[in-house]
């Protein structure tokens, strides 16, 4: 039994809810970066200063003012084990930077894990909201409310010309990063993905892999987000992302229909092979797992695998990451042992839901 609730389940409560366009969009995310006026940014803060900012920001959560928005719990990173931190990273609830490098880092986590607020990461405050499916506007409205609650008692570093001041000049202005996590297997299979992604980067958006900056796009999962934070309002940034994501969704759906119409048997074969391998293999590395799980997910949405439950697939994406595998086994595992544990957990999850 894990000590903290977040480590018990790979599937965050918010992920179990249905969202619009969830055949293509797994989740929508908003992150807001804010800093306190009278303290240096965490990079240059002394231990006393970062302790001070942490206590001030935590006290806002502990005062109960955020309770209406999700009954959050607060954790100081120093109280968590390395494995618990890794689990939080794998669930997208904290960044690798907060887990690895922060001084006096802390986390405020909503009960449904749809709110995660990082303290003393690169900026003093990073408010993150996660919504299932394609709900980027809803995520922004929610995050903005949390921002307003903090602003009631914290003097933000704000400049009339530059807007919200952040440690990195790439976040200054609105301080927001809006992103949509998309599953685009049909665009990859039909070879259209590169054309579409290069078009996306030309309109000021960035494309990354499952785990954000620097991560490779595995399992046909792509995270599309805004790059520009200065000179556009939040609603312009979100509308822009919304419009582009909407088009990508349309292309993916059209490509899936075409696949079904023109090469149904081949797609069915691919999907069923992957399902078979996941159901029976004894060794499964992470790259193969994410590719096969992507095939099965495509099969589910094409109606080719009615026996598979979508929640199980979402759960397996997180459950097959190294931290969770070790959490489940209760010990550190070598990469070889992990591949065996991964295969075992996939087999048992797929068997139990049938």
């Amino acid at each position: 039994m894990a000590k903290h609730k977040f480590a018990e389940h790979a599937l965050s409560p918010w992920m179990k809810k249905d969202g619009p366009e969830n055949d293509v969009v797994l989740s929508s995310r908003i992150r807001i970066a804010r800093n306190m006026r009278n303290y240096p940014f965490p990079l240059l803060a002394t231990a006393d200063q970062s302790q001070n900012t942490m206590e001030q920001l935590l006290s806002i959560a502990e005062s109960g003012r955020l309770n209406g928005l999700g009954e959050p719990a607060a954790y100081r990173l120093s109280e968590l084990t390395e494995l618990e931190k890794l689990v939080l990273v794998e669930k997208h609830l904290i960044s690798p930077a907060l887990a690895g490098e922060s001084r006096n880092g802390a986390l405020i986590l909503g009960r449904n894990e749809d709110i995660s607020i990082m303290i003393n990461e690169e900026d003093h405050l990073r408010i993150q909201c996660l919504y299932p499916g394609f709900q980027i506007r809803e995520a922004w409205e929610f995050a903005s409310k949390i921002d307003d609650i903090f602003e009631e008692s914290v003097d933000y570093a704000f400049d009339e010309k530059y807007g919200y001041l952040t440690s990195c000049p790439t976040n200054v202005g609105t301080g927001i990063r809006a992103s949509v996590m998309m599953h685009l297997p049909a665009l990859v299979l039909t070879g259209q993905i590169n054309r579409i992604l290069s078009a996306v980067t030309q309109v000021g958006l960035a494309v990354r892999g499952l785990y954000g900056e620097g991560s490779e796009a595995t399992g046909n999962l792509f995270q599309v987000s805004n790059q520009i934070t200065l000179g556009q309002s939040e609603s312009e940034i979100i509308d822009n992302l919304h419009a582009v994501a909407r088009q990508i969704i349309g292309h993916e759906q059209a490509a899936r229909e075409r696949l079904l119409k023109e090469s149904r048997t081949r797609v069915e074969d691919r999907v069923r092979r992957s399902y078979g391998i996941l159901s029976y293999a004894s060794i499964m590395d992470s790259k193969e797992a994410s590719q096969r799980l992507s095939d099965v997910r495509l099969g589910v949405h094409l109606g080719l695998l009615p026996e598979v439950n979508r929640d199980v697939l979402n759960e397996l994406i997180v459950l097959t990451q190294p931290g969770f595998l070790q959490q489940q086994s209760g010990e550190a595992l070598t990469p070889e042992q992990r591949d065996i544990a991964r295969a075992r957990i996939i087999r048992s999850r797929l068997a139990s839901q049938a």
Partner: protein
Amino acid sequence: MQCQECGNRPATLHFTKIVNGEKTELHICEFCARERGELIPGTSSGFSIHNLLSGLIDFDPASAGAKQQTLRCEMCGMTYAQFSKMGRFGCSHCYKHFAERLDPLLKRVHGNTVHVGKVPKRVGGQVRMRREIDKLKRELQSRIEREDFESAASLRDRIRDLEREIGS
């Protein structure tokens, strides 16, 4: 030329090491170089947004000179040279102290230099209202263009109210 390590792939990296006058050459492929942990300058190991950014910050033809070196934030003590190396500010006051050098950088990163989004309620009361008035004026203009005079009139009244509030 084949890679000296694996003998399979073509060598794409060529190292020349001179230690105590003794010269050794190494021709390997990128894959083997990474395996050996050889430091490959300019490749992905440890490459981050901050490296990329510091390239942008440095890249400024007008910046050659002593001024850049001496520019320093009076609050946290960070110099512009340090900022350009790290790609991150030390505190919110750096923005003020580095202001003269900031606009070209922000222009390159964002294509813009002025914030137009959300304004905090408490800190930015006046700013918020001025922005609100600007927004309403733009809206007013478009309603007039659409010949929607009735709703334009009520908008005009709201703008007047807000302007009075700021003036008082």
